[in-house]
């Protein structure tokens, strides 16, 4: 299975690549439209601020292609890459996102930010978070949440082909790798069934 990791200059893509390779994916780090179209799945990484990230994505000219791909293929956003999937963010100046998932991104209320470190999701397994903004979306799209200083934080969101992980699965030990593995298996099922 070939994953196109979108290269738009925001954050470290190499650890995502290493984790995908560790679970047996073929990885191409790219901004080449042909490479993206020929991949089985798309991964949007990202670390940093939302407005700069959208600006960098715009510079690549890939936004229309990414929007189309999200309708056709499995599409995973990680950390800031997950936040970009939403309609807009209030980080810095209010900015439009990719709009692949209904909802917005807003600053967390917790007294101590960023929310950094291991926090539990799903069956009490811990994953590694680093962020100060969170998704605000309908409960129906939230697969898993974490709790930080009394605040609920969407950790995994899903809408159609599009999945978002607020934490870093590539840095969340064996459990993080198992989540990527589950995503990979879902992609492979799609490839076999042809849609």
């Amino acid at each position: 299975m070939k994953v196109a990791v979108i290269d738009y200059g925001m954050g470290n893509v190499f650890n995502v690549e290493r984790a995908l390779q560790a679970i047996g994916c073929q990885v191409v780090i790219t901004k080449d439209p042909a490479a993206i179209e020929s991949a089985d799945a798309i991964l949007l990484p990202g670390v940093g601020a939302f407005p700069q990230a959208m600006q960098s994505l715009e510079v690549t000219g890939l936004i229309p292609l990414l929007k189309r791909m999200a309708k056709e293929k499995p599409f995973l956003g990680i950390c800031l890459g997950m936040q970009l999937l939403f309609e807009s963010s209030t980080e810095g100046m209010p900015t439009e996102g990719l709009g692949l998932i209904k909802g917005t991104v807003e600053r967390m209320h917790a007294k101590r930010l960023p929310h950094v470190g291991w926090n539990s999701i799903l069956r009490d397994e811990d994953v590694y978070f680093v962020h100060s903004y969170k998704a605000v979306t309908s409960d129906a799209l939230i697969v898993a949440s974490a709790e930080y200083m009394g605040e609920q934080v969407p950790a995994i969101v899903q809408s159609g082909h599009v999945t978002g992980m607020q934490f870093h699965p590539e840095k969340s030990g064996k459990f993080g790798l198992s989540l990527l593995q589950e995503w990979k298996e879902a992609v492979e099922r799609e490839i076999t069934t042809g849609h």
Partner: protein
Amino acid sequence: MLKRRIIPCLDVKEGRVVKGIEFVQLRDIGDPVEIAKYYDDSGADELVFLDITASTERRQTMLDVVSAVARKVFIPLTVGGGIRSLEDISSLLKAGADKVSLNTLAVESPNLIREAADRFGSQCIVVAIDVKFEEGDYYVYTYGGKERTNRLAVDWAKEVTELGAGELLVTSMNQDGKQNGYDLGILRRLREVVDIPIIASGGAGNAEHVVEALETVDAALLASILHDRKTTVEEVKHVCSEHNLPMRFVMTTPD
């Protein structure tokens, strides 16, 4: 709930892991990848690698170590020691480090903290503060504890936080290598003045010492007591957990 973190610290010299006792004596401990895997398996939440080689070939050797570890171990990796520029940071992040720890460079060019935070994000900038209590206050030291500066630890911690540091790694030189407990005085003072995560370092002799530190700060750095197998990450976490500190335990999901 957010967990307190246990972070084994590996001193790396010429591609091997060693441990400095009070920053001076060294003895060989072993292969970085093997040791990193061992600590990952036993529940380490992160790993810190400190490059303590003073040779010019050091940079490439350290990049090779980081890259080898990052292919096998999928928890956050921090690298410190001898970082001199934004380019050094960039190479380490590309090699697989998630964070870098700045110490002497930060003190000598504080603006680099801001530049590094702007370019790579605060989440990957750890500022290491070596402190020594003398003449009634905590002073910041540089060059691996060799040089005293006129900066007070509390002021420096506030300043680096404003410059964009993501975390503080606080080593007490009075306590380092002595195994009779962390310096709780400085940890409590820093906890009052900064909101970013604080990692305690220097002085752990047993799990109870870790409990004391983690009642105040977010994470504890451990070296000798782990490398000597006096205790394990799991054991430390169980003791912390008995004291109601939230810890992450690695679960093995049956296939």
